[in-house]
């Protein structure tokens, strides 16, 4: 994929682009795009994929003007406009799914196809979503991956926390990325989406890993209840990062929107 920059009213935005065909915008989760690149490459064989980084992610500029959910969804609409796209297939994973849902709810006539991959944005008291902000890196894999041991290996491949230089880089990245995510997800990833879901008019596919321990599948049903006609695709042997663990299942599900 090619990494490019585009100007939006608030901040220059970095985005990955590849492929041909119907335009598709992919919004990443709170962890950024690192785990998504393989999936996006495969997705770009079928679609013209645009994957913008939220301000603060990767090497992109932070944006202090984005403070709340309204800012985030309007900013992401600004990105779509800056890319010159009209009614792209909107795909969002986790935090990105929350933003995509909000975008579709605030501008229902501008989104006709929506794929939500284990989206955040709802809260069920009986099923509290674990607090990723207080988790230490080694605690994350069981919540993210179906195969926690394999996941731990992937995540620890990053570097050694006892090396001060690596640690500093890690902390800066966490402050930038999760700091930005916290504006719409801390301390609870709910900014009132439940009361707006009814506005979504898009044909909607929900995609969920069967063994998602971060946002368990009971949330899929909550989204299904909220969005008229939403279809649910459950992916076996996949955790929260379902597009990483089972990219082709996810792509097949998205392709139903094409």
């Amino acid at each position, binding site marked *: 994929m090619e990494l490019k920059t585009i100007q939006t009213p608030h901040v220059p935005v970095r985005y990955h682009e590849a492929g041909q065909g119907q335009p598709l915008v992919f919004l990443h989760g709170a962890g950024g795009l690192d785990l998504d690149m393989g999936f996006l490459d495969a997705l770009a064989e079928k679609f013209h994929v645009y994957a913008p980084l939220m301000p603060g992610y990767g090497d992109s500029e932070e944006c202090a003007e984005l403070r709340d959910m309204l800012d985030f969804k309007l900013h992401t609409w600004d990105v779509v406009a800056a890319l010159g796209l009209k009614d792209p297939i909107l795909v969002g994973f986790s935090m990105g799914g929350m933003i995509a849902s909000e975008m579709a709810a605030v501008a229902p006539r501008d989104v006709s196809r929506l794929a939500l991959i284990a989206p955040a944005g709802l809260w069920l008291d009986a099923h509290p979503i674990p607090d990723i902000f207080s988790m230490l890196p080694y605690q994350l894999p069981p919540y993210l991956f179906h195969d926690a041991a394999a996941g731990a290996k992937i995540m620890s491949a990053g570097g050694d926390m006892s090396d001060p230089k690596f640690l500093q880089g890690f902390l800066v990245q966490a402050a930038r990325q999760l700091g*930005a995510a916290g504006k719409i997800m801390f301390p609870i990833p709910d900014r009132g989406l439940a009361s707006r879901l009814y506005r979504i008019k898009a044909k909607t596919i929900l995609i969920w890993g069967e063994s998602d321990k971060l946002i368990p599948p009971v949330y899929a049903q909550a989204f299904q209840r909220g969005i008229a006609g939403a279809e649910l695709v459950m992916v076996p042997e996949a955790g929260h990062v379902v597009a990483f663990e089972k990219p082709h299942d996810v792509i097949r599900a998205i392709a139903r929107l094409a």
Partner: protein
Amino acid sequence: MKFTWFNLMPWPYLPADFRQTHRSVWVDIDSKLFDPEKSHELYNTYIDLLEYAGALGFDGIGVNEHHQNAYGLMPSPNLIAAGLARRTRDVAIVVLGASIALYNPPLRVAEEFAMLDCISGGRLVAGFPVGTSMDTNYCYGQIPALLREKYREANDLILRAWNEREPFAFNGRYTKLRYVNLWPRPIQQPRPPIHIPGGGSIETFDFCLDNTYSYSYLSFGGYVRGKQLMQSYWDRVAERNTPDTSPYRAGFAQTICVADTDEEAERLYAKHVSYFYNRCLHVFPGFADAPGYRTIKTIQKGVLSQYAPPKGGLFPELSWKEMVEGGYIIAGSPETVRQRMEEMIKGLHVGNIFCLMHIGDMPKEKSMYSTRLFAEKVMPKLRNIFPEHAADNRFWCRPMANRVSPGALPTEVDLRQMAGADD
């Protein structure tokens, strides 16, 4: 020098295996460990100790704010301060402080501090901490990346409320008020002195220098470890060509234990110090620093040593010897303590010392013994370290000259006559 006797008010009944059986003393502390009936005596003893220190000649007695924390029983420091204002006469009431971004609206702090200043006759030393990540983000749900902006706005609101004499509208991002009109108003004009507890961020250094606030470093790491951070503060003071380098621009918290001899100090206090450092400071590292709480600039500046969760938690198990030699604590005979205090005061160039003299599960008698020895045999010898700055009153309270004695209602016998009933 200004010495403030500080009590964190720790819960003294944590089990011996707390570290092994519980993940954190803070945020998700096991609430079953709290016994309200035991707290009755505890609160009263702790408040008695503060009053005792006030009577021994300390310049200030200090309280602070923590939430869901087994080493701090003061979610509301102002409640304790109000009691102290009534029961003490001359000592400064140091509230270090109220986390101004946590109050809605923050005007509440301006009001309560004004009340404290009025009740105490102008003895309030105010503190405006941003608050730890544990308190502000994890306990009080503030969004880490927005906390500092909210804090600055709260500071602006409080200062304006104290300063302005006409009602004004405050259109903040986080607080909107149509009629700000403070009532009551503080005795100290234009405002009580303000101290800012900080953890080493450059922005906070600048904030203090811009506003003539005193910067205080309230760690439990002691003066050896505090040296780097305080030095970066004084470097910043120099970099900005600040007109003076008064030591009262800075404060430092230090755990102090005094006994007759060094050996006696270890014998009397070691187990309580160990209780504090090894049980009370057992904080789950995931709560230490929510992403976005600290600014990028601060992380990049490398003021990391204290915050990067080291293996074994924030404070690994330490022996008495390690704690004394590492400067975590200053402990020993009055002469030992005097020497090390002087080394600390000069080394850090600090005029405000927050003396942590009730430690962990220390019984009141030991705390009183240590406190009295410090007040009588150590403090007097440290008074004049900075004679050239003795007149600097920007960072300390300026009480009214004629203060009343609380509890001075007339006796019942004279009541009829005094009320004028016989006229």
